[in-house]
């Protein structure tokens, strides 16, 4: 089971992984490459990872979620490589008998991803510049920030 892919994410595939007759609520989260008010002409983000560690961490993270929400079914996939603006870099699906568990489990997974999954991103800008994104979500190119 691999949590990483270099291909566009398929929501249908994530949904198929979690679907069950016993589940009445499914929450899906998609993180997409943004070029909004806080950005500055982002055309794509280049995602890289410590791949072996990502696989291990995702395995633990999903196991942890399964302990906390035993009736939930969870699927997650992170895309690596150059992802154009508007496309998804991560997809999470959580299905559960009731909606509260589905929302909570899905939210838990994305928060944990942000905290501990070793993935990095470099924004590629319209003007040709490339900027590493810092964990607060804003890019930094100044070494003093590191």
């Amino acid at each position, binding site marked *: 089971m691999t949590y990483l892919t270099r291909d566009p994410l398929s929501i249908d595939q994530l949904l198929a992984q979690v679907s069950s007759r016993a589940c009445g609520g499914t929450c899906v989260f998609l993180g997409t490459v943004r070029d909004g008010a806080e950005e500055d002409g982002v055309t794509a983000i280049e995602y890289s990872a410590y791949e072996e*560690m990502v696989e*291990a961490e995702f395995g633990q993270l999903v196991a942890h979620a399964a302990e906390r929400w035993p009736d939930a079914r969870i699927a997650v996939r992170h895309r690596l490589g150059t992802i154009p603006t508007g496309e998804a*870099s991560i997809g999470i699906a959580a299905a559960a008998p009731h909606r509260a568990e589905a929302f909570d489990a899905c939210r838990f997974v994305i928060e944990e991803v942000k905290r*501990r999954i*070793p993935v*990095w991103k470099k924004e590629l800008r319209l003007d040709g510049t490339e900027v*590493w994104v*810092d964990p607060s*979500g804003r890019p930094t190119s100044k070494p003093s920030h*590191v």
Partner: protein
Amino acid sequence: MGAMSATVRVRFFARYAELVGRTEVQVSVELPATVSDVVRRVRTELPGAGAIPERPLAAVNLKQSKLDARVEDGDEVAFLPPIAGG
């Protein structure tokens, strides 16, 4: 009698890999050694690695690790820039 030494595989990612111009290096340290010892060795001896922080986020054998954690021969030590996944 010489001190025991350990060889560890050090891996660099993202901005750190750019700074040092490579993704991995083999480092020898005298035992007992900690992650900090590996960091110090790399920062002083590897060109470009001085820009890696003195106390980077680190992982040993795929698990986040404190800097005072012990390293053994054959371990994989990774220096991780601030995590920005999702």
